[in-house]
């Protein structure tokens, strides 16, 4: 437990575990509010308008108002819906997003559970979202929801392959599945990040194009996995109204919404860990250490949250068959190519 300062702080193990599991939840709650505000404000900035201005100075408590509004709304369950599944779906989706926080290392001194298969765990738990989506779409007994759920199922399964290969490649390069060790392998200046080929001599220039394209592959597939634009086909409002959450309202809709934002952060954190050196400072020892580590980690992760929001307000949406085409005929072959090249490099190194 050397990776967890709370254990050292609190002597009682039970209280420590509760504190450790609550810390990410508090973080997610605060983060979701910030991300919702960010979405509103970035959207309004892109679109040359002001965005929310009335709730608090510059509308900063708008997300709170929205959450309160959603909680107050009537919680409708369609009479023809499968009630058990319908009510469970949003929570299952949120469980998937929240469980991922169990292994996310915010700093060298804090990770809730420092397990040896952290990368594998993150990936496995990330697929939880699809259960929630298909469950919700199926149980709603609505044709639009069903279409959305089916689209989502095919989309997430397709994009898990390039994403999985990207993870595998990085694991091969680092020789570990433990997230802390993965990050430690990238310590030093920013050119040691896996984005730039990882730690190594000048000869890593040959592997750099592969790691860089792997980064792009992973970025694209993770966008598809979180159903964000240009891959927001499961909830493509112009054809299937709101997709799998068409029938949801009130707190259950809020849970879906919340899970989506939490997933956005999980994906961004994963990109940060895999390619951008996690909590490492980009400038060697400058502002290093466990406390600054939290800062660097959150800055890097938030940058990718910002990228996702930015893309959403810029790009149109792809069509289902184009999405499949992109996954199976573009990303999968290229990710295999990168896997091959980088594995060869890892063997020779």
């Amino acid at each position, binding site marked *: 437990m050397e990776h967890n300062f709370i254990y050292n702080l609190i002597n009682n193990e039970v209280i420590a575990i509760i504190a450790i599991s609550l810390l990410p939840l508090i973080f997610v709650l605060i983060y979701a509010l910030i991300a919702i505000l960010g979405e509103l404000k970035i*959207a309004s900035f892109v679109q040359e308008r002001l965005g929310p201005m009335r709730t608090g100075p510059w509308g900063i408590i708008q997300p709170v108002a929205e959450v309160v509004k959603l909680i107050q709304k009537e919680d409708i369950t369609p009479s023809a819906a499968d009630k058990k599944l319908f009510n469970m779906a949003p929570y299952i989706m949120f469980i998937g997003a929240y469980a991922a926080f169990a292994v996310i290392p915010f700093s060298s001194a804090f990770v809730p559970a420092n397990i040896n298969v952290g990368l594998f765990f993150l990936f496995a738990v990330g697929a939880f979202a699809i259960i929630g989506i298909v469950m919700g779409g199926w149980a709603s007994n609505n*044709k639009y929801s069903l279409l959305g759920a089916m689209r989502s199922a095919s989309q997430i399964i397709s994009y898990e392959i390039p994403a999985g290969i990207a993870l595998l490649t990085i694991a091969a390069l680092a020789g570990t599945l433990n997230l802390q060790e993965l990050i430690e392998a990238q310590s030093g200046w920013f050119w040691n990040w896996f984005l730039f080929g990882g730690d190594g001599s000048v000869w890593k220039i040959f592997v750099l194009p592969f790691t860089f394209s792997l980064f792009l592959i992973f970025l694209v597939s993770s966008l598809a996995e979180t159903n964000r*634009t240009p891959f927001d086909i499961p909830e493509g409002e*112009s*054809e299937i*109204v709101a997709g799998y959450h068409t029938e949801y309202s009130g707190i259950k809709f809020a849970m879906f919404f919340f899970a989506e934002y939490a997933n956005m952060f999980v994906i961004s954190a994963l990109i940060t860990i895999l390619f951008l050196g996690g909590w490492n400072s980009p400038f060697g020892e400058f502002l290093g250490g466990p406390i600054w580590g939290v800062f660097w980690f959150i800055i890097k992760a938030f940058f990718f949250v910002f990228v996702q929001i930015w893309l959403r307000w810029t*790009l149109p949406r792809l069509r289902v068959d184009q999405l499949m085409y992109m996954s199976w005929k573009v990303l999968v072959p290229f990710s295999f190519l990168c896997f091959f090249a980088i594995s060869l490099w890892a063997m020779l190194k």
Partner: protein
Amino acid sequence: MSERRRIEFEYSGVDTERMRVNVGPQHPSTHGVLRLEVELEGEIVTEVIPHIGYLHRCFEKHAEAMTYPQVIPYIDRMDYISSMNNEWPYVMAIEKMCDIKIPEKVEYIRLICAELNRIANHQIAVATFGLDAGAFTPFLYLFRDREWILNVFETISGGRLLYNYYCVGGLRNDVYPTFKEDCLDIVRQVRATNKEIMDLLVYNYIFVERTAKVGVLPPDVAINYGCSGPVLRGSGNAFDLRRSEPYSIYDRFDFDVQIGKGEVGIVGDSWDRNIVRMNEMEESCKIIEQAVAQMPNTGDVSEAIPKKVRVPKGEIYCSAENPKGELGFYIVSDGGQKPFRVRPRATSFINLSVLPEISKGYMIADLVLILGSIDIVLGEIDR
């Protein structure tokens, strides 16, 4: 791309149950209260049946109970996106029947307003088309510019959407002193934004992939269905009433009739219909610039307005090039103050009739885009 489409559509070895989905009347992208009964096989559309009539307001019956000038507000509410254009063929028809000579200044103001409204209409068409493809930001850019046009209309007519501005023999009010400068400002702003929209939306790779080769309307089919406006021109038919049968003073201006050329796909696809609208905005800008330069400053816009509109016995069909296509009015008069019969040739209605023909075999996401590229307004379809 087309090869891919064929492969994927032909592969239907697995027999699945077909699903009937009602798209609309309350649906975010049916552009009003249109209901489409869609039969789907998986995601592929096998049948489309448009159901209309949710916005029926008995326009034709109302018109029989009103005097001629009183009909104009009802006409505004037909194609509520381009009210100025709607009023024009109606007042022109009555002016022809009554043999009223209207002042030069009125012609120019009518023409400038009509072209401004054409720009406003095409802005909405392109904006909502982008919205159907999932691009939200261009929508707001275009709506921001449309406000400039609506502000001018509000100043001259008092209304922002329904103007009731043209009247038989003239105009309701004269324009304000800085009208010309405002028009030129709008032209400048529209051009700047359209340049941006071209980069952000029209030539965006994803957007081209989504709209090119989708909903191809061959030129002969377009003619057979009686389509007009950008839908017809997008298929490569250079038919524009402003050029082929110049009404009012359109013969004095230099502009091109824009047609679809199949630049990124096949002639007559959704992208072509959209680019025709984008280019027509530029043509309208050109016409406005010329008209502002030629427009006389003096003159009374209401000098030819008759005290009582009493139309001689007879009938007339008069049409004008609306942003959405040819809008014509067939008016029968029995010599009284009220029309015996007013029958509009509604563009959107005729253009919509081609939808089932061109949307079969595409995906449901394409269906929404094809509908968006036809650019209908339900007020005109249901009347």
